[in-house]
């Protein structure tokens, strides 16, 4: 009995003393290997009487299990310690910078973003989006829109012209998005509900004018829509676009050859504090022109003005972008200064939606 106790004490002491896995393995081989101390003892079992074997065998096996557990335990400890030592050496400087994700570097131009915002609002009201060419004919840009030849209203447009063709026709850069009204009415039967965003051109350049700018136009043609509807649509638009609960609007009679009656619309705002706040204040700010489509325009596209009616409006995209987002200078829109674009631009995943808010 004492020999087993002794062997157990010695072996377990050796296990505890093992400094690393090879040392532990040596202890294991010494005790449990083919010629290990415990293995040798097991071999002696065959020479014993059955009774002796019963008690002695159980004792030896218990010893074997005990030693085995101790070795496994020790092995776990040693492994853990070794990994700890290795990881302690495997350190990185976590303060080193990573590259900015591409989606954080990129920007959407305010004009694109605002067109998307406008589209979201009007799509919700059932409008679709129409477009037309930048290079237009005199017919689409003026004549079909009821600008009489030589009328001073034409002069107010500061038109860019191309050189006359051999047949005398002189193309031009559209001065407004309204020619697309004509193109739309020529190809689509009422009811028509479209918005028309696009680039427009006038040969004019100063602090508040650039030779190229963006407009969005709206057109409704059916048999019932009147000025009251137009007022409602514009009010709904202004509230949604400027993201305010209420917008006070003022409709002033005005003149456009292609609408009758014609109006300009001002919105009330407060400009006292360097930024524009809508829905408060006492200033009036002109934001758009509108009116009922002129009977001559309807006739020009083959619609009977006694049967069909409707309205149109137009506004400057760059201008309403400036009003909403506070850019001070229109010219900067087209200067492609990355500092400006990064500051006033929008992240690519800032998608304007009515559900999530136009701007976030």
């Amino acid at each position, binding site marked *: 009995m004492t020999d087993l106790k002794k062997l157990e004490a010695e072996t377990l002491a050796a296990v505890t003393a093992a400094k690393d896995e090879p040392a532990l393995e040596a202890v294991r081989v010494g005790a449990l290997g083919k010629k290990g101390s415990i293995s040798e003892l097991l071999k002696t079992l065959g020479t014993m009487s059955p009774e002796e074997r019963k008690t002695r065998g159980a004792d030896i096996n218990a010893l074997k299990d005990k030693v085995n557990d101790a070795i496994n335990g020790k092995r776990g400890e040693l492994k853990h310690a070794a990994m700890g030592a290795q990881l302690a050496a495997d350190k990185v400087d976590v303060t080193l*910078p990573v*590259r900015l994700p*591409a*989606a954080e*570097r*990129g920007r*959407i131009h305010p*004009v*694109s973003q605002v067109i*998307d915002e406008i*589209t979201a609002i*009007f799509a919700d009201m*059932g409008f679709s*989006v129409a*477009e037309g060419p*930048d*290079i237009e004919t005199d017919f689409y840009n003026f004549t079909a829109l009821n600008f009489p030849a*030589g009328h001073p209203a034409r*002069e107010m447009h500061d038109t*860019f012209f*191309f*050189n006359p063709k051999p047949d005398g026709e002189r193309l031009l*850069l559209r001065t407004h998005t309204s020619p697309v009204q004509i193109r739309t009415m020529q190809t689509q039967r009422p009811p028509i509900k479209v918005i028309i965003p696009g*680039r427009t051109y006038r*040969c*004019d350049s100063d602090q508040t004018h650039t*030779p*190229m700018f963006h407009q969005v136009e709206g057109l*409704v043609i059916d048999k019932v829509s*009147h*000025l*009251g*509807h137009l*007022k*409602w*649509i514009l*009010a709904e638009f202004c509230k949604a676009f400027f993201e305010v609960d209420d917008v006070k609007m003022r409709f*002033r*009679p*005005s*003149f456009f050859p292609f609408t*009758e*009656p*014609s109006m300009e619309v001002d919105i009330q705002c407060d400009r006292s504090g360097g930024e524009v706040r809508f829905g408060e204040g006492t200033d009036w700010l002109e934001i758009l022109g509108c009116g*009922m489509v002129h*009977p*001559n325009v309807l006739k020009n596209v083959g619609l009977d*003005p006694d049967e069909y*009616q409707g309205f149109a409006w137009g506004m400057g995209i760059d201008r309403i972008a400036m009003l909403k987002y506070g850019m001070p200078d229109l010219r900067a829109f*087209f*200067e*492609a*200064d*990355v*500092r400006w674009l990064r500051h006033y*631009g929008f*992240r*690519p*995943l800032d*998608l304007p939606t009515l559900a999530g808010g136009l701007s976030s």
Partner: protein
Amino acid sequence: MKFTLSWLKMYLDTDASLEAIVEKLTLIGLEVESVEDRAKALAPFTVAYVVSAEQHPNADRLRVCMVDTGQGAPVQVVCGAPNARTGMKSVFAAPGTYIPGKDITLGVGTIRGVESRGMLVSEAELKLSDDHAVIIELPDDAPVGKPFAELRGLNDAVIDVAVTPNRADALGVHGIARDLAATMIGTFKDKPIKRIEAKFPCPVKVTLDFGSTPLLCPAFALRLIRGVKNGPSPEWAQKKLRAIGLRPINALVDVTNLLTFDRSRPLHVFDAAKVTGNLTVRRAKPGESLLALDGKIYGLDPDICVIADERGVESLAGIMGGEESGVSESTTDVLVESALWDPLNIAQTGRRLGINSDARYRFERGVDPMMTVPGLELATSLILQMCGGEASEIFLAGEIPDTDRLIDFPLSEVQRLTGLKATPAEIRRVLESLGFLIAGSGDVVKVSPPSWRADIEGKADLVEEIVRILGLERVAQTEFPRDENARKPVLTPIQKRTRAAKRALAASGLVEAVTWSFISKPVAELFGGGSTALALANPIAAELSDMRPSLIPGLALAAQKNADRGYPDTAMFEVGQVFTGDRPEDQLTAATTVRRGAARAAGTGRHWQSATGPADAFDAKSDALAVLAAAGAPVEKLQIVPGGPAFLHPGRSATIQLGPKLIFGWFGELHPATLEALDVEGPLAVSEVFLERVPEPKARATRTKPKLDLSPFQPVTRDFAFIVDRGVLADAIVRAAESVDKALISSVEVFDLYEGKGIEAGKKSIAIAVTLQPREKTLTDEEIDAVAKKIVAEVTKRTGATLRG
């Protein structure tokens, strides 16, 4: 159009305040641009008497004045003006007064040890003139304490309204008063115009001579007034003209200016002594010219209408008179002209000659034909009143056109077009107060517009008059019904692609720019444009002269500008129109990227994790493919063919296509010669893709995606390295490998490229990873080996490769 409040009140009897009138003007479509109320600004400045002016004890140039302001004891004022003296009357400002010319608020001061409790002011300090040397001197009888503005006649607000081109009638104060009166803010005072008694026949006859050409002058009325004494017009007339920014000349000229602004009836006066014989109104003859009243000589031609005497041209019809026959202080006999001109011809002539006169402005918008003769009578009575003399009969050449017309007007039209429920009585009242005549009493009436409203054509115009005067605020907002149709996407395919391209490129780290649609001709030519058809006839600048054939130059120039500002690493894109011709179908939408410096696809600038060179063709390729994927192009089928347009680096560029006829665009580095021509520093990596070229997706009946087909067997990947000639395309190796077993080989990826040590010169090593995806059973080693052998054989056969040992 400027006028004063008192001028308006000559024709409008009203108790309304200036503010109420101004607001009403804007609300009826005569938008007030400014109101200058000088009486308000100058209210604190009063007449004062200088009781004494003594030399300042400590300063040679200053005087110490005791000033009687009309309130309490005289106050002490230190004054530096040389004309400050005892016994004079001048203008005083008390401490606390804002001095407009100096932009300061006056305080009590001590000047060189002497207290000063106020100021005697100069005209410059009141912003009345530039005269700042002396203080204002007033007549001895000026009452002390009276507001100076009142004394000077400045207590009359000047209102400036923007008149839209359709409202020629509102270019006269009389017409504006009529409009206001219709809103019931006051009563219109419209006195009948008296006929002047003629003393003798008009000795000068007028002929309208247009031969067989279109008539440019329907009517021309002329009268001689003889025995006039011309000179400065009376103070009331001068005051009126000065208030609206006109310089009084002499009584005869001032009368024509008064009528222009009072009735929108321009007139012209000739010195009869300087007119030879009778007058002819005709087209100018080639080679004729005129020294006009503005001192300039204008060359004329038959498109210009003139008034000539027997010697030659005396006046530019309806635009400006001639210097030679103009009136002067010595004029004793004056011919007064009141004519009607063809508006279009006036507009064209004025534009061609570059003359902007008050007469042109009105004639091209259309004056009231019925005022031709009455306007002449009004002018005559003013001339007789100011200058004396006696008037001849009126000689009328041509005839006053008949402007009468009738519009059938259903009263329901107001509600149909505006939603406004106006009563028949209201409708009648508005139209009648604006001078329209109404016949009939039923639901449909006949309306005759007045002669001064040539802009009224039909029903819609009448509706505008009614809502304008009744007030647009009465039109109630009416909810616009969304129709019953199902909600469908509202964007066209190209609109969707444009949007997707923008978001995809921004999400790839590029910044969106919007650049001019026009560029300079040399640059346009460099990129395949610059044709005559796309050159502007009137560009605003040489560098903005031709429609752009590509977005690359605009972005390249912008990248250089940013670099000049200290931002060398920029990645920018634009999605916008380019022009290949002048027809609508020649306008394409390009999605274009330009990367400069270290603005690479993986990240911008130097970074500790990777060595970065400048952005190259592969960054540009990744941008182009990102756009094409977003636009729905079949990316996996695209062909990348070496080489592109001449503006790209021939060895570092490619064309993206689907067969030689369907070219989507290109990418690469700009050719060094292009960089030089643009005067920008390179390298610049660019890509340009045309969104219209992407085929439209096939319409699908269902949104269900194709069934997901997953194999239960493990895929196996084998790597191969080939040595090939440097000119062999990686794509050729990939395609050769793919072709071996299209069903089994699911992907072939190039994962390594090596040239240099260990590889023969002129050769390169390309390594590919081939993935086999069995579908029916797990592959055995033998089967894998067999495929591998076939791959090696096929690549070798097609590209001349050898397997790298």
